[in-house]
């Protein structure tokens, strides 16, 4: 933007007025401490989880042949959840068709 009738150059003024602000030293230190402790906590949680498993369990986890059971269990769980959703939907549909009981606020049905 150019000078407006020699009065002021707004973009220059804005650049001067809105100069970047250096964060206080203590903020940087505080942030780094917080982030390091979060990272350390996450790492500790992971390692304690691994420590809780016996050597045999860890071995078993590494063997791909043992992955079939958890995957099958997850699939079965997913299918069951899907079935529940379908049952719920079909109940709602039948209720909407008039099969459901009327509630005290269903005045227009």
């Amino acid at each position, binding site marked *: *933007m150019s000078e*407006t009738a020699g*009065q*002021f150059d*707004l*973009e220059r*003024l*804005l*650049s*001067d*007025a*809105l*100069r*970047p*602000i*250096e*964060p*206080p030293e203590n*903020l*940087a230190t*505080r*942030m780094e401490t*917080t*982030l390091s402790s*979060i*990272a350390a906590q*996450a*790492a500790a949680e*992971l390692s304690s989880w691994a420590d809780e498993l016996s050597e045999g369990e860890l071995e078993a986890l590494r063997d791909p042949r043992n992955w079939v059971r958890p995957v099958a269990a997850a699939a079965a769980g997913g299918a069951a959840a899907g079935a529940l959703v379908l049952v719920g939907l079909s109940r709602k549909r039948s209720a909407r068709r008039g099969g459901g009981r009327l509630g005290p606020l269903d005045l227009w049905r």
Partner: protein
Amino acid sequence: MSTDAEHAPQSSVAPPVSKAELDRAFEDLYRAHLRDVYSYAYYRVGNHHDAEDLTEQAFLQAYRHFERARRESDGRPLRPWLIRIAHNLASNYYRDRARRPEANIDAVEPPSHPHDTERVAEGREELREVISRLDELPEDRREALIMRFALGMSNREIARALGRTDGATKVLIHRAIKQLEESMEGREDE
């Protein structure tokens, strides 16, 4: 401003696989943009105390979603994403506490003219006026100007931070400058 950092590791290297690598990448991002986030927070909330809290919250939230953001950024700089987090937090800050930004210009020093004290005083007064007029702008216009002038963000970066198109952002900035200019001209006529 932080332009080098924008093209630092996060924009050119494939997403890291290990937690350690991810933490290192986040540390780079944090070091590169701490001043940007703090400056943005400061100009939004108007005081150092709340700006510190807001900056801390913004980085903690960024840390939680960093892996996903890196994956989805597709190599683009993450500064707009960070500023967007700070923007959302600042909006909540006003909504929750029903506050308006304070026109605190303690940290705003006028450009130095060591041999001309009168000009220093005039400069300070002018800057005070700009900050005060800036606070009267609608929030989106004020924010766009903060991003442009305090953080040196490009139109495209501002667009990403505000979730707008490039064209809409260009218009927003143009209107913000025009409104501020008119407001300043009005002051001179007063």
